[in-house]
């Protein structure tokens, strides 16, 4: 673990780091999957429509996965994106229905999501409780709030007509994809340039060492969870805006999808290792795989089997790279 951090810190441009090897391997797999898709459907797969389709349907995961990567980097797990996202989406619809401007209601609902995430991270780091179970409790609570807010049904009547402003398609480019790209680029920069990312990685690699060297666990872990909640909420708001409907079950299995994207991208679930770039490729791999399976006519529940196998394969591959490859 400490080796990994040391590697990260002494990243030189000429020498390939462990993360570099991992990212290369993942990128190669991504290319292979794309080639397979191309071979199966030479006309359909590379069409502009299909590519936009993959990106749009994958935008929620691409928006929340970089912060999930940070959560995993800090050695924690967040099971609450599903609930927090649904709560934010439902609150967004309620605020908009009550006559608040769309932008303001989006910001208000995301702020409420952020408070939940902050509380979750604060409890985890302050009381040193396992993140998995605390975030699971928050998932229950937020999902329950979403259910109560929507009254167990969907909210579609009475929403203002301009609610889909946030997710329009401007000259052929859907806004959710633009947001996703901006967020991923922002987090690529944050990971390579800021002290915050280093501190989070240090906490994940060895939390007691990080603490003794003066890194605040409470501050960083709370921030990481708040960030993740912000982007999960944003994803929920975008889904609501895209379909002009709020439903408490709008993001089923969202946390699993984000975690799978991170793990596929080489993030260590024990913390201390992982890259936003790898996570992006992981998310794209899941998106392209889903797209190919859809084209082959596999139904969503059969795709779960493939997802499970991919998850196992990804973890084994990461382990193999970490133990076998000497850099």
């Amino acid at each position: 673990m400490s080796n990994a951090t040391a590697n990260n810190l002494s990243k030189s441009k000429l020498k390939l780091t462990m993360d570099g090897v991992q990212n290369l391997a993942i990128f190669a797999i991504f290319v292979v999957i794309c080639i397979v898709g191309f071979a199966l459907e030479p006309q359909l797969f590379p069409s502009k429509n299909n590519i936009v389709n993959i990106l749009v349907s994958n935008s929620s995961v691409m928006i929340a996965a970089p912060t999930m990567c940070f959560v995993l980097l800090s050695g924690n797990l967040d099971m609450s994106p599903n609930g927090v996202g649904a709560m934010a989406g439902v609150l967004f619809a309620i605020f908009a229905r009550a006559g608040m401007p769309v932008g303001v209601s989006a910001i208000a609902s995301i702020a409420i999501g952020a408070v939940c995430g902050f509380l979750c991270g604060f409890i985890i780091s302050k009381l040193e409780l396992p993140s998995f179970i605390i975030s699971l409790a928050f998932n229950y609570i937020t999902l329950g709030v979403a259910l109560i807010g929507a009254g167990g049904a969907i909210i579609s009547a009475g929403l203002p007509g301009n609610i889909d402003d946030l997710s329009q398609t401007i000259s052929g480019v859907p806004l959710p994809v633009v947001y996703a790209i901006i967020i991923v680029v922002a987090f690529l920069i944050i990971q390579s340039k800021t002290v915050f990312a280093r501190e989070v990685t240090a906490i994940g690699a060895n939390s007691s060492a990080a603490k003794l060297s003066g890194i605040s666990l409470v501050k960083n872990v709370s921030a990481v969870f708040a960030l993740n909640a912000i982007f999960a909420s944003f994803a929920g708001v975008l889904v609501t805006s895209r379909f002009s409907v709020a439903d408490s079950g709008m993001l089923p299995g969202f946390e699993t999808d984000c975690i799978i994207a991170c793990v596929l991208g080489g993030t260590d679930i024990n913390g201390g290792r992982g890259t936003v770039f790898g996570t992006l490729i992981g998310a794209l791999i899941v998106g392209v795989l889903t797209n190919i399976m859809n084209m082959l006519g596999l139904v969503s529940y059969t795709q779960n089997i493939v997802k499970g196998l991919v998850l196992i394969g990804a973890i084994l591959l990461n382990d193999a790279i970490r133990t076998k490859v000497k850099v």
Partner: protein
Amino acid sequence: MKKKLNINRTTRYNIMLLVLLAVLMVFFTIQNDRFLTLLNLMGIVRQTVPQALIACGLCFVVIAGGIDLSTGSCMGLSAIIYGKLCLAGMNAWLAVVLCLVFGVILAWINTVLSENLKIPSIMGTLATQLIAGGAALTIVKAIPISDKLVKPVTVMNQLKFFDKKVPLAFFIVLAVVLVFIFLEKKTLIGKYALAIGGNANAAFFSGINVWKMRFIFFALCSVLSAFSGVWMVGRLGSADPTIGRGMHFEVLSACILGGVNIKGGEGTIIGCVLGTYILAVLTNGMQMMDISSFYQQVVIGVVMLAALLINQLTANRAAKKAAIAKAAA
């Protein structure tokens, strides 16, 4: 060990749970005088057979520092296997036995993933959850099997004793809980679970076969899940691939509420059973008070959070006390 008068923290926590359960029952009885009737109480027991059985099995897995998220999918797939075998003309009770064998196979896969391939069990069982759940739905194309041939097990649900007042479910739960308490207190399984959960490496070097023990824990959990799947077929009269949806979290929260440390090394079967019934009584009582089921999720989340906070704060206090005692000595 010499018996002391002061009771340890685990027992104190269990007593607290018992008091909480009693308070809840008194509260709901005041709200609705039909709550504390044998009919309703037995109804609660009948409705929560899967939760109670799987909580017992999951308890050992979590105490030993693992986790099993595949329980719900295991229920679904076992129900489908049972249904398909019955449709193929097999004797229903033989099919039940084969379902239990399926549970053992799933446990073997979980063990191989976590012990041989070194995948943390939270990820390994998440993968088996996705695979088993997907397989259950794929086999039947998401359509429940409600053929006449799957009906034989419905007798399990209908069988009642003592003036047709006490259902078979009560005896099954009682027997399983007693067996598990026996396993925990009187056999090495309980001791080894605590040892492995406390420090798996130390357990390994002191001669415990960690692989075998983990397999036993996963097997107990999966076999009970598989049985619960068949039980649900008996209750519903049809084999539905989605019967276990969300069960893994429900059971896990019951165990956590029951004082099992998610990091391993701490927990009791009695606590898990109490946790299960606290959640069950909460759900039932809130239904009787006409509180919309949407609020139940929030309540479950808050109760879980409160239990964790209380447990952690008392643990911190106990640790501090021990440190002071050590310093004084």
